[in-house]
């Protein structure tokens, strides 16, 4: 039984928007050239591939459903639990839960526990229930076992890759590129895809037998958590802009175009909002969400829905605090555009203002919007972590890098140190933000007329 959470809905809306934009961009020569120049840069191409990978996980993780009960009764056939397609795909990572901490690739617990050995209770490190459970003599066999699995996983990844290369190569040969256009950096793209596929292959081989990034305090797989966090990060980075865009575009262009009292009101609005420290605004709004939720507790059947609403609300608030920058940029640009001949001509012909805005002004400021959206993405992902530290981020039950860092903070004082939660969130967050930044650079170089 499929479930569409609110954020899922918005994510699909966003995807539809991206699809629409791609069609438009493909038709418009100017946009196509600009995007081509994004991808032509090696870093741009690699970033698109890597971000596409992250986006793919987020999308898979956004297709939710109620699983069927094992023993359905007449009236209830589905459990209340909400799973996503991603949860099903990663199978063992979600279900193989240990008792408590274990290190990456460990076969025994990280902590000493009381256990029975030959009828006597001693304190020692018990074997894990799943991690390395298939090994007879883990101390000797483990390294070899891991090596075999890594090699076979990488080989499988490479196999899939070769098939893919052949396929794409065949398609490309059939359609020869026009000679005057610079070739795309296919080698870089192929290398990135190979690396990703090999990683996926290795991970797929390993997850059933080991916890690649160890387990957390209650024995959940850390890799699973950090992969689930991708959806949260991506949603915060994209939905926030999606929500703020209509306001920022409408108000920004109107202020610049109509000037006069409209401009005054809009300027007052964003100066006022802009003057409030963002953290305080977010804190207040999150608290008010709590009120709303406790007043309407019966509306939320499951934890996932509640956490989801909180995430959406956080996006809205972040959007509210961040639209002012874009609004100001647009206003400035429109002020300049307004003096252009073709717009003055349209005004002289008596074309209604709204129509001029839609037909002539908007297309000419879209590059600013695009650059802002891409630039904001990484900042928003980083902001989530900081907000969760102050307890005003996403729901504590939700997987997110901020929540992971927040609990990992305390783990650093353990002896021996529990470093893997921090490391896992660091690696994934770093990769996502890094490539988002690189893409942002490429997009800015391609679209910003000042840079050109």
């Amino acid at each position, binding site marked *: 039984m499929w479930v569409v959470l609110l954020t899922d809905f918005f994510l699909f809306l966003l995807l539809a928007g991206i699809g629409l934009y791609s069609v438009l961009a493909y038709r418009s020569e100017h946009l196509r050239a600009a995007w081509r120049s994004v991808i032509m840069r090696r870093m741009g191409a690699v970033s698109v591939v890597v971000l596409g990978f992250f986006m793919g996980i987020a999308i898979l993780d956004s297709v939710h459903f109620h699983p069927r*009960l094992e*023993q359905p*009764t*007449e*009236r*209830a056939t589905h*459990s*209340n*639990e909400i799973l996503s397609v991603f949860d099903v795909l990663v199978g063992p990572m979600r279900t193989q839960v240990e*008792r*408590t901490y274990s290190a990456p690739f460990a076969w025994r617990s990280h*902590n*000493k*526990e*009381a256990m029975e050995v030959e009828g*006597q*209770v*001693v*304190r020692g490190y018990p074997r894990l229930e799943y991690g390395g459970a298939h090994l007879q003599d883990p101390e000797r066999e483990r390294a070899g076992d891991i090596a075999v699995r890594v090699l076979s996983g990488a080989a499988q990844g490479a196999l899939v890759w070769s098939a893919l290369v052949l396929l794409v190569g065949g398609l490309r040969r059939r359609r020869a590129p026009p000679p005057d256009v610079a070739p795309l950096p296919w080698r870089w793209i192929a290398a990135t895809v190979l690396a990703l596929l090999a990683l996926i292959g290795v991970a797929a081989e390993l997850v059933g037998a080991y916890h690649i990034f160890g387990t*957390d*305090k*209650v024995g*959940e797989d850390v890799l699973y958590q950090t992969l689930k966090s991708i959806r949260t990060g991506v949603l915060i980075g994209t939905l926030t802009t999606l929500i703020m865009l209509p306001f920022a575009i409408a108000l920004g262009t109107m202020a610049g175009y109509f000037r006069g009292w409209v401009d005054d009101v809009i300027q007052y609005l964003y100066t006022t909002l802009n003057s409030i420290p963002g953290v305080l605004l977010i804190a207040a709004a999150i*608290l008010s969400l*709590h*009120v709303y*939720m*406790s007043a309407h*507790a019966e509306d*939320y*059947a*499951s*934890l996932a829905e*509640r956490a989801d609403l909180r995430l959406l609300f956080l996006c809205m608030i972040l959007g509210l605090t961040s639209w002012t920058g874009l609004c100001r940029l647009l206003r400035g640009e429109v002020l300049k555009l307004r003096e252009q001949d073709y717009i003055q001509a349209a005004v002289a012909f008596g074309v209604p203002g709204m129509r001029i805005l839609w037909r002539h002004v908007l297309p000419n400021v879209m590059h600013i919007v695009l650059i802002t959206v891409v630039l904001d993405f990484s900042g928003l992902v980083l902001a989530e972590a900081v907000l969760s530290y102050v*307890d005003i981020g996403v*729901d*504590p*039950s939700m997987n997110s890098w901020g*929540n992971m860092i*927040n*609990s990992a*903070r*305390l*783990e*650093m*004082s*353990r*002896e021996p140190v529990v470093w893997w939660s921090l490391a896992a969130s660091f690696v994934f967050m770093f990769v996502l933000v890094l490539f988002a930044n690189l893409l942002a650079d490429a997009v800015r170089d391609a679209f910003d007329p000042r840079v050109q």
Partner: protein
Amino acid sequence: MSFNLRLCMLTAVIFIAGCDGVWNNPYGLSEGSEDMVYYSTFSERPQFLDPARSYSTTAYQFIQQIYEPPLGYHYLKRPFALRSLSAERMPTVRLLDAQGRELPPDTPPNQVRYSEYIIDIQPNILYQPHPALARREDGGLRYHNLTEADLAAINTLSDFEHTGTRELIAEDFVNEIKRMADPRRHCPVTGILGEYIVGFTEFRERIKAQQDEWSFDLRPYSISGVQVESRYRYRIRLHGVYPQFIFWLAMPFFAPVPWEADVFYAQDGMSQRNLNLHWHPIGTGPYMLTENNPNLRMVLERNPNFRGETYPSDGDPGDREAGFLRDAGRTLPFLDRAIYSLEKESIPRWTKFLQGYYDMSGIGSDSFDQAIQYSGTGEAGVTDEMRERGIDLSTAIALTVYYMGFNMIDPVVGGTSERSRLLRQAISIAVDYEEYIAIFNNGRGIPAQGPIPPQIFGAHLGEANLNPHVYRWREGRAERRGIEEARELLRQAGYHKGIDQETGKPLTLYYEAVGAGPDAKASLNWLRKQFAKLDIQLVIRATDYNRFRAKMREGAGQIFQWGWHADYPDPENFLFLLYGPNAQVDNDGPNSTNYRNPEYDALFSQMKNIPNGPKRQRIIDQMMEILRHDAPWAWGYHPVDYVLSHDWMINNKLSTISYNTLKYHRIDVDRRAQKRAEWNAPVVWPLWLALIVLIALIATALIGFMRRERERAR
């Protein structure tokens, strides 16, 4: 990075010059080493230090060093024994009839109209030096008619040039009781005091009626049931019999406050400077608060006028061997000063403890494995690493219970129906508190068999204490009943495999979660797993504490966890958590589950008024059986306090009920200084490495620069 490193080097040089090879000492160089100073922490700034108002552990760790109520607990004896503190002796209790005639002590409680406590205080006790008591040469109070001009140069209390003192008199104790009745003081326990102290409520109503006209000097007004008899004697008259009142006399609520302080602080301009009794107490205890900067640190200093109490010379068996009686008979206090630093994060607190900058420390669950190991028999001890550092462990069962409550007015989990009772029992078995304690408390707790923790009268030892509905006794220890039994109970309740047989829908329960700390997510996941064992879906509704309380008052919650820390070591203080008339919903009382069982309530009224003995034990046993059968709580656990201390700390026996233990502590200052120097030698090689890297970087840059120049020149 060049500039950072240069800065590092620069400061490093300053440190080397300044602090004998130790760079990370968090205390100033100005600390005199000849004083005996105790270093500790506080994690949250105490909100109120006014004894009439404060009611929290954070505040008690300070004010119990400063204020002395008439009674206190013996430092070494367990179970806890009351003894006199500022009182001369234990109070005399008289039972009276309606006409005020004395009744024999064995009169049944229902025939007693009043009971009267007569308290004699010790003469010659002096207050700490304080500007509120400073007098001019002509004998008038120096700082009681201050103008704005006088206050111009005043920012903190220590800016007042003169201080004074005076002798403690019975009237000061009476003054404090009037202060508690004063609605402007927001005393949190007026409800219960008004119920017992004769005239308390009338006095309160009178003030409230004309709040704005009453001055803060309460001397002209009086509570009919609280009277000064002589300079050193006062008496408190109570309605009926309330044997637990004696414990109240050991709480800071009943500590003396001089009227001069109220008048002094009520002057205009004082509160704008944060000068009030909440921040600057005035007491007769062994210490006085000399620096109150809740953003940074609080400093307690020895009260030079302290009455000269001596270290106890008797204790529990074993105390002499443990070294707790080495200082028997010596004059208290030992420490010259106690510095409490604000430490909100657990990482820095623990690290500084290991570096020797804090003398004692609790153990966060994250550093537990580093500090504690269990022997084969399950006994806790410090790890070898700790032993090498000379760190000792002391443990004590806290007078606390953490429980999972079922809202008894909820249609699903509550009510008196057999169905809901079976559901509650099933959940009680399924929620495995042994595992909870092991995972989240590192084993620092014992699963509760009922509301009363061990060490309190009414709780048994061993098998007699067992809750037979959840546990069975096997091979000398309690063993939780298996999950199959819980499933069977659930089936009997009509929720076979988590499906409501009446509606056919899966059973979904709601849990009210509070807070969002780093551990919250893990423990919520754990909780969900416990319910999943019964195929019950648990929906977690997370709120903040504020909203949680509101929900509880409305009776809107379903399942929740809460805790209770005893005010005094008497079973009544735990059993009243389930007494019907104390229900949270109707009366805003402490009975959070709104449990109401007439039989239990009748037994409670009986139990309350009789002294500890076989008769009381019998009644308590009956009450416990009713509770265990009805299962309004899944009984949860009693935490065990683990405290680590360095070996230079002398005389620290853990007490879970009283906080006024600072005066007993002593410190071997030389040993501490030596250890600190030993443990904190900075690791310097990265600085040199950084310097080399820096030089290499500059060199490469220069070479590149010169090459370019040459190329350009060509």
